[in-house]
């Protein structure tokens, strides 16, 4: 049985074989075959958005270069307040993790 990352790669190959002719939207970060692969994995996993993002982070981040991860697929909308990103936090972090970090920080005590 293949590992999870091997299975995801094989699944992406199968999807891309069917959808490679589809063009990418100029404002999209992902190709249609990448979106469909993520949709299939989401349906197969059968969990909500946040647990699925944890799976994607855990399984796929190792295979994606740092340069690619610098532009997240689902980037946060522009913040009109102009506050520092560290204040608002990032959308691709677990809520609980951020709150725990906030409590553990002695500077906030």
């Amino acid at each position, binding site marked *: *049985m293949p590992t*999870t990352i091997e*299975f995801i790669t094989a*699944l992406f190959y*199968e999807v891309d074989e069917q959808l490679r002719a589809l063009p990418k939207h100029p404002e999209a970060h992902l190709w249609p075959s990448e979106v*469909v692969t993520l*949709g*299939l*994995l*989401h*349906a*197969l*996993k*059968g*969990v*909500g958005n946040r647990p699925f993002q944890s*799976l994607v982070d855990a399984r796929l981040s190792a295979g994606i270069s740092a340069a690619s991860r610098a532009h997240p697929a689902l980037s946060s909308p522009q913040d009109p307040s102009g506050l520092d990103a560290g204040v608002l936090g990032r959308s691709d972090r677990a809520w609980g993790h951020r709150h725990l970090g906030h409590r553990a920080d002695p500077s906030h005590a």
Partner: protein
Amino acid sequence: MREGRSPQQIGRKGVSNHRWIVGGKLCLLLNQWGLIVGWACDTANVADNTFQWLIRQCEEQMIVLSDTGFHAAEGDPANLKLCQRGEWEDRMLVETVLSMLTLVCHLKKVMHRGWAYFQARLAFTMAAFNVLVQWQGFQPSTSGFVPLSLSGFSL
């Protein structure tokens, strides 16, 4: 108890397996090997015979076996064969597919807040099922039965 908790609730109250549920209803059309060749969804309050249009779509291609819930007083599609409980063993194939979708894809626990997202989730689940049960190719037994398995892909 589960109805009316949110003004934006997309699920409706209906009966499933002799008990009340709040949610949606999925109608599957399987071929003789258990692959999904058609599907439709609606809220749980609609009658099963609402999906007769799905059966009519393949009127020239195959007969469709269903339970008596798909009968309509106004008339049934010519290719619809209503089966009494326990009359046809093909029901086992349907239940096998539903069991795989339930255990591997957790299809009975869908929490989307928008109908379009719910439909997309079902579409991806149907597509994933068809792709994955054919992952190793079809390997029929001597009697022509094709064993289906999804458990090896459980993430």
